């Protein structure tokens, strides 16, 4: 008989799904070395590799739990870790990324002052050798729904999500293997606020080389997840309330207009008409912003992360 999991509450549970990559040790140590009492955080490693992990000293630490799943992919592995987690906040780290020292303490300090369900810090994107590439400094606070729908990506590795908000949203969508992180952020942003930290909290590997993400399905899955969110009756009012400027109103209109085109191409004409109707409603709601060139630039321009582009510009100028 094996028994896994315990009962008690603490501040943070870091969940690392792993496919057994050797970089796991670096990820684990970066969590266990945080300057917080071990009674305030735990580490749950979900070994989805289908084989036992090589023995290591960290596996005997009292605040470490190892769960074995059976090639269930990242969303199921993360949801499984989240289900046994005892933390009030959940933090999902990949096995090839790592936390910077002092990160957890910063999150605890901000969590004491903020009611936000999603607390996040600045992310340092690195190449597969660990060399710094781009700094993701979003500075998005409060209702971030429109930016998230328009292509902003806040890495999970730099984010702490309140456990009750995570479970109220239903956790990660197991059907998604790639856009599951942005999908979760959007579903939580539908009803919850975000709060940013000032400092860099995590280093995250960038690029498709060495990535375990099945990129060939990414675009199709991403569209399906976006459609499901647009179906939610909470989406329209939340989108408008997070779009105070002409730019974001243009982005909100684009969300429905592009969906209308996609549904038409999928042979779903009635749904396309429905989306077009909502796009027109959003345009009507934009009022005078319709006469602002920024509105139409935002409406016509493909979705992309403004933060990522700014990071890339800063890197090139440096």
């Amino acid at each position, binding site marked *: 008989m*094996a*028994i896994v*999991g315990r009962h008690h509450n603490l501040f943070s549970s870091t969940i690392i799904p792993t496919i057994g990559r050797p970089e796991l040790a670096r990820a684990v140590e970066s969590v266990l070395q945080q300057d917080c009492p071990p009674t305030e955080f735990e580490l749950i490693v979900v070994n989805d590799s289908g084989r036992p992990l090589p023995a290591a000293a960290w596996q005997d630490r009292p605040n470490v739990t190892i*769960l074995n799943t*059976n090639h269930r992919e990242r969303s199921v592995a993360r*949801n499984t870790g989240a*289900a046994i987690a005892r933390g009030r906040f959940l933090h999902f780290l990949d096995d090839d990324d790592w936390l910077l020292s002092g990160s957890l303490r910063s999150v605890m300090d901000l969590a004491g002052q903020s009611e936000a369900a999603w607390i996040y810090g600045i992310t340092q994107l690195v190449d597969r050798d660990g060399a710094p590439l781009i700094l993701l400094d979003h500075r998005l606070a409060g209702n971030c729904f429109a930016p998230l729908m328009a292509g902003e990506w806040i890495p999970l590795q730099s984010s702490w999500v309140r456990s009750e908000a995570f479970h109220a949203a239903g956790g990660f969508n*197991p059907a998604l293997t790639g856009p599951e992180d942005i999908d979760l952020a959007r579903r939580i942003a539908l009803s919850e606020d975000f709060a940013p930290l000032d400092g860099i909290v995590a280093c995250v590997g960038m690029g498709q080389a060495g990535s375990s993400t099945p990129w060939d399905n990414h675009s199709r899955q991403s569209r399906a997840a976006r459609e499901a969110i647009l179906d939610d009756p909470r989406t329209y009012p939340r989108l408008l309330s997070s779009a105070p400027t002409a730019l974001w109103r243009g982005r909100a209109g684009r969300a429905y207009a592009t969906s209308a085109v996609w549904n038409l191409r999928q042979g779903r004409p009635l749904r396309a008409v*429905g989306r077009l109707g909502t796009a027109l409603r959003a345009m009507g709601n934009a009022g005078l912003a319709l006469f602002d060139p920024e509105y139409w630039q935002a409406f016509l321009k493909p979705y992309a992360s403004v933060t990522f582009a700014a990071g890339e510009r800063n890197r090139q100028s440096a």
Partner: protein
Amino acid sequence: MTPFLSTIIPTIGRPSLIKAVDSVLAEGQVLAEHEIIIVNDSGRPLEHNFDHRIVTILNTNRRRLSVARNVGAAVARGQYLHFLDDDDWMLPGWLGEFARLAAAHPDAVLLYGGLQIVNQAGKFLGELNLGVTGNCAAHVLGNAWIQVGTAAFRADSFFKAGGFSPLILPAEETHLYRRLALAGEFAHTPGLLMSLLREAGWQTTTPYEKVVENLRISREAMLDAPGAWTRLYHSAQTPYWRGRNLKAYMASTLWNLKSRRWTTALSRSLYAAATFLAAGTSLIDQDFRQAIKDTQVSATADRAMAAHNLY
């Protein structure tokens, strides 16, 4: 060795758990092909020590039924997943019956059998079995009930369907059956596999007041799925189930009208018209009209449960 089947028992720590586990362990002759995962969602340690080499205990933290079952499924190694509630128990021969069904229907996404209803004194009150093999889309849309303990899910199909929804609870079982029925075939045995305890005044942990709303959400998701109408059409082999299909599209049309989802309502009404025209001579059948009159409660469950005043 990959087990043939994993039994997952979520529990809130009720004393009846011991009987449930013992009934599963009683299939001694095939233990090598079997594992049991108890998911203790009670938030406190279990009082009983289930010390057996095929038993694993996982402690979740009051995450409720769907999450607890999904956690058990994620760590399970079996080719088939079987979910038993902690107040039900299996009947002798159930595991062999699943093995025979799996051998006869290797492509089926779901294997299931019957259950007996008994009262606290052990008196036999009736039995339930949907009794349909193949495309069961119309049946599960029409709320025909397959008690989860009488079913074994092919693991790959379970995960492809996304497992139990944490957001549609209760009605999480029906919602999963509906997604599975769109994807593949069910296989059934007339054998009785499980025992369900019921009697007047029976207490449940399920918040039934949310069932109607959740079934409606689940119905809309099923009707939205690409190819749903064709799958439902081929599934409805009798006038009764053709009538149930029509009722589902009509109910959905009305709900979407009330919710001011005009284009979806129009789409549903067109599908309802197609269902009506495709029914042919079924339109003059008594069963067809009865199906339209029936409430959305499962006809199969209704007969046995209502006969003993168990609702």
